[in-house]
Each structure stands twice: as C-alpha cells, then as structure tokens.
C-alpha cells in the first residue's frame, strides 16, 4: 500500500471568528528546527490589524455583558478542547525546537492556566472590588470593569504558555483582544485560535495576527480604538520612541510577567468604577 501523503495545514490569521489570509497576500516561511519547510504563515498587514480591532470592538460589549458564570464556563471549555489536542500542541512545540518533555509540560501548564483563570471569572470581583466606608450617608462601592479592546504582544518563548498567560487574564475581565503572538514560533497561536473558534468563545473576542512585531506593534500602539496594550512580549531592543503614539489616547500600557499568575494580571486590564448613592428615607 502506498504511503499516505500528509494533509498540510494552512496557518492563517484569526479575525472576527474567521480564518482569513492576510489581505496583503504576504506570508512568512516557518521552518522546523531541522530546517525543513513547515508552513507559509500569514504575515498580517496594517489593514488586517484594523479589521481585527474592529472585530474586537464589535464583540466587546457582548463579551463583557455575559454573566461571569458564562464567561467562566467558556474559558473552561477552551481548556477542555485543548486537552483533546495535547499531542498536536506538543508536536508543534517540538517542531519549534522544544524538547519533548518540556513540550508536554508546557501544553499541560497552558491548559491548567486556562482552568485557573476560568475559575477567576466570577471571583476576582470579590478580591478587587470594595464597599467603601465613606464618612457620610452614602452607599459607595467600587467594581472592576473591562478596559475594552486590549492589544496583547505575546512573548516569543514560551510561545504557547506565554500567550495563554497574558491572553486569559484579559478575557477574564471582559476585554476582547488583538494578539500578536510569538514571532519566532507562531504555529502554536494559530492552533490555539482553532481551539478558541470551537469553544463557544464568541467571534471577535480573540483575534490573532501573525507577523513581525516591530511592524505590527506601532500600528497597534497608535490605533485609537485600542484601550490597552500589553508589552510583555515586546522585543527587548524595541525603540522606546515607538511607544510615543500610545499616549495619543492615553492607552494603558502594561508590562507583565509570564510567570506571575495572579489576580493582578486580570486587573491590569480593568478599570475601577465607583458608584455613590445617598442613604435616606
């Protein structure tokens, strides 16, 4: 019997729940550590980024408007679907040069991190919200709200765990995201987008743009409908002057830490709203 020919995957962008190629028609060749051709990964353009921001904005109020219980179930569903694809993710990590045992551990940690953050959806408000004992006849409370559309520049390494560690907390808080994943190892992000697309995450809540960070980042920072940008995975040699445009709309610029699992990673992408009402008869 003749040996079966592999069906290769086309690694595309993820925008508004769909998987388009870059409108620019550009791609970047990704090779395995052994130097073998793996894929022509889509190279997102400025137009793709604008489309992604528009999709994220359209989805934001709906995502934030879901109950916290529902958001928690959906993020848990991401973990469930990933669990069934462990071997695929591990194989892709190995293609990107991660040693077998480390690859398996990274996949398991990423899945467990989704579970951890899924559980925060209806709890972090207890931890970071307050009822404030003001000196007067008022009921006064403070609650977290999503910042809005968040740009996430994911770390290059670990390409899967790093992405999940920054994306998941943004989603917990009710934000929608435009993600620039690992430039060196973009495969995992594309496969994660396929998980997200099949996990009841509404279209547009997560958008993933593969491509060169130095090219995409200034457009992300300068987009006036992006409320916050997470620079955790920004290149070390980033010219600080590209950050200037972030001040155009007073963006929240976050520099996180991949290893730091904490509710603070959620509140990095939250605004605090305080409401006053008089007490009387």
């Amino acid at each position, binding site marked *: 019997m003749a040996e079966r020919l592999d069906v290769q995957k086309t690694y595309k962008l993820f925008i508004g729940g769909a998987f388009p190629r870059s409108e620019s028609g550009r791609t970047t060749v990704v090779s395995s550590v052994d130097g073998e051709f793996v894929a022509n990964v889509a190279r997102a353009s400025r137009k793709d980024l604008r489309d992604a921001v528009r999709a994220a904005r359209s989805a934001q109020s709906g995502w934030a408007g879901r109950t916290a219980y529902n958001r928690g179930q959906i993020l848990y569903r991401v973990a469930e679907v990933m669990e069934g694809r462990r071997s695929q993710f591990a194989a892709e990590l190995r293609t990107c040069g991660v040693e077998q045992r480390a690859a398996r551990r990274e996949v398991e940690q990423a899945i467990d991190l989704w579970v951890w953050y899924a559980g925060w959806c209806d709890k972090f408000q207890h931890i970071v919200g*307050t009822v*404030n*004992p*003001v*000196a*007067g006849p*008022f009921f*006064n409370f*403070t609650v977290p709200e999503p910042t809005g559309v968040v740009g996430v520049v994911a770390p290059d390494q670990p390409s899967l765990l790093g992405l999940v560690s920054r994306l998941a907390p943004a989603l917990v808080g009710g934000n929608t995201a435009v993600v620039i994943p690992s430039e060196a190892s973009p495969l995992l992000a594309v496969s994660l987008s396929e998980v997200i697309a099949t996990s009841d995450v509404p279209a547009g809540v997560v958008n993933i743009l593969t491509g060169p960070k130095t090219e995409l980042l200034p457009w992300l920072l300068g987009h006036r409908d992006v*409320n916050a940008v997470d620079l955790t995975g920004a290149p070390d040699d980033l010219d*600080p*002057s590209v*950050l*200037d445009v*972030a*001040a*155009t*709309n*007073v963006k*929240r*610029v976050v*520099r996180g*830490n991949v*290893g*730091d*699992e*904490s509710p*603070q990673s959620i509140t990095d992408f939250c*605004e*605090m*709203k*305080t*409401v*006053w*009402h*008089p007490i009387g008869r």
Partner: protein
Amino acid sequence: MTDNKHPVPAEPSHGFGLEYAPAPESTSIVSIDDDYGLFIGGEFVDPIEGGAFPTISPSTEEHLANVASASAADVDRAVSAARRAHTDVWGSMPGKERAKYLFRIARQLQERAREFAVLETLDGGKPIKESRDIDIPLAAAHFFYYAGWADKLEYAYPGRRHDSRGVVGQIIPWNFPMLMASWKLAPALAAGNTVVLKPAETTPLTALLLGELMQDVGLPPGVVNIVTGAGETGAALVDHRDVDKLAFTGSTAVGKQIQRTALARNVPVTLELGGKAAHIVFEDAAIDQAVEGVINGIYFNQGHVCCAGSRLLVQESIADSFVDRLKRRLATVRVGDPLDKNTDVGAINSSQQLAKISELVEVGVGEGAELFQPDCALPDRGFFYRPTILSNVEQTHRVAREEVFGPVLSVLTFRTPEEAVAKANNTPYGLSAGIWTEKGSKILWMADRLDAGVIWANTFNQFDPTSPFGGYKESGFGREGGLHGLAPYLSLSPMKGRS
C-alpha cells in the same frame, strides 16, 4: 437670544429679595512671608540659580509673595534628598512608625485648619466656605486614612510581596492645592516612598505651609520635598533619571506628554486628567434635589473641577421647565469675594483661565448656543466670571466637547436612556458622571453603561478618602483614594516560594 451682557432671569431674581451684609473671614490668622525658598531636605533653601516668581490673590490681584522657581539643578537636589531619606530612614522604617508620622500630620492639619483654609482662599480664589468645609478637612482626612494603612500593607494585597517604589515625583494642579497634595502625599508616604512634590505655579502657598508643618511634626528630612515653579520645573522632575514613579493631576494635554516620557523611560505613572462629565437628569428625578445637584455639580469651585458636571443631559420632556428652574436658582447664587462666608462662587484662578473661559463661551454662542448669565454685580478688581448656562448646545459644539474648567454649564437633551448613554459616552474623557432618577434599577442600568470612573447617583461631587477616584479613557489611569489608591505606590510581585 437674550442680551449677552445683562440677560433677564426667567423669574424674579434673588428669590426673597434678601441682601447679604458682608461677612468676610479675617485674614489675621495667616502670616505670609515676602519670599519663599524651596523645601528640600527638611529646610527652606534658596534656589541654586536664584529665580523667583510672584503669586497673587486672584480675587484682588494683590501681590502675596515671591516664590522660588526651581531649576533642573534644584529638582536634582530635591530628588537626591528624597533618595537619601528613602535609603537611610523612610524605606526601612517599620510601618507602625510611618503611620504615627502620618497621624501627626493629619492632626496638625486639623489644628491649623482655619489658617490653611484662609491661605488657600487667598492664594487660589475659592470660596472660604469650600476651603474651610471641604478642602482642608478632606485633606486631613486623607492623611488620617492612609496613616492607618502604613502598618497594614500585607493585608492590602494578600499573597503578594509589596515594596515601596522609592522616590516618587508628584505634580499637582491649582484647583484644589492642599487636597491634591494630600491625595498624592498620603498614600505615597504610607507605602514607604519619599516624595518630591511640585505644586501649581499659581497656588504654591499652602504647599509651602505644609512644608512648615512637616518640620513641626518632625518628619525626617527629605521624606517630603517641595519644589515650586512653572512647567519647566515639572518637566525637570518628570525627566529626572532617579525618580521611580510619577503621579500627575492636571490637563490631558500635559498628561499625554508626561505619559510619553514615562513610557520612554519605563517608569510607572498614574494620571488624573481632564473630564467632560455628563450630568443626566431623567423626568422621574426628584426635581428640586436635581436642580441643587446640577448647580453644585458645575459651579462648585467656580467649575475648576476635573469631574465637574459640565454637560447637562436632561430628558426632553422636562427640559424647558428644568432649565427655567436652573436659571431661577442661578440668580440666587452669590458671586464675589471668596473670603466672604456667604460667597458661593469665588474668583477665577488666573487671568489666563478667565481668558480661556471667556473665549470658549464666545465660541459656544457663535456656534448657536443660547447664553444665560444672572445679572449679578462682580467686584471691580480680580478675576471673576458670571456663572453661565449655555442651552441648545449640540454634541458637535466645542463647549460640549472641550473642558471649559469654569462655571459654564452646557445643556443638551435626550429622549431615551439608550440615547443618554450614547451621548454621555460620546467623549474621549471618562472621569465622572451623574444620574438623577428615583428608579433604582435605572440607576444601576445606567451606572453599568457609563464610561466613567466615578458615578454619582442622586448626588454629585462627593469625595472621601476611602472612595477611589480616577478616570476611564483619556481622563487618565490609576485611582486615588481607598484601597485602590495604594497600589500605584507599591511594587507588587509574587511571593517567594509560592507554588
């Protein structure tokens, strides 16, 4: 349109025909020096390059004092003093001891409250009843509140390691000089930081008096340093390489410049910037209370308030009668000498601000707004502006989009709650909003949808040390007050050995 200069109120003015005899607060309680130095390392010192600027009373244009202008070299000296104080004393002092210093500051502020209030009104032009009843008591309350946090930080962020950031550079505005100083200093000091504070150019005197108070409480030298000056002084502080954290309250334009510098230097920053608050009145509101709330919301402190309710959104069904009531109420507002205990609206803070307000109102009238100003007498000297209502304002008008920072209310209308939300959020700002309705579910529905950091429902312009304050969108980020006000002044990281 009515006569712009002397429009006639809709109803007989001065409600009961009452005249108020002058009731001026005595200024004998304050003594103002001819010249002030910079407060660095616990002492008042002459600036290295010797410059000074005058500060005047905006209500009389009388010269009050000459104040040292800090150059970059002076700022450097202040930052060095703060660094030494952080390394040698304050950063390692047990929280219980830091707390006691802050409690002392709060107590001495209470003891000298009248002196601070009179000086605040002299230098800034705000009514004495506000500086006496709001600014200074609240400033003391902020120190008292955060004093108690200094030895309880491990309970503020459980599971997190917390460290002070080090030397903090803080820049404050002229609208609430002492209150803003306390909002900045109290949480920073409680968290174990040392501070270089730059007060606003037009209102430096109460901050300098606070420097004296810091000496009286025995605060270790260098823990608080006060550098007076204009924008260049602030820029030198923002640019200084040894400042670990920046905090700014002021205009959105300057805030953006500061954010750019902070981003380039990778220094944490918090910004409390401008606002264009929607003050939303539904037809089912308690109307008399809403009238008082709207008047207070915009004319409090001459409208020099970043969270002022400057855009009235009134439901169409009651718009005409509500605006008539506002006009009638406005005719009884007493404008004049801020030292007079009966004065509701005092002096505009500076001639520049007066010019800006006048210009924007002229633009508003030119764009088609209808102007109402009560026919009240204004003092011959000083900077005063009649409290103003601009009705028939549209969302595209500059007075509906730009922060006037003066006693000017723009009136717009809406029909449905959805339209109120859309119009309220149609601004790059997001600091505060007001809602007036007797229907509780509608309050919560609106509060959920308004993009603003502070929502006042059936009240407005309430402040408290325990209540976080700060903006969404281009009104800045970070919170001041409450538990949330501590976070910007702490470096939070994972606990060692946590699984």
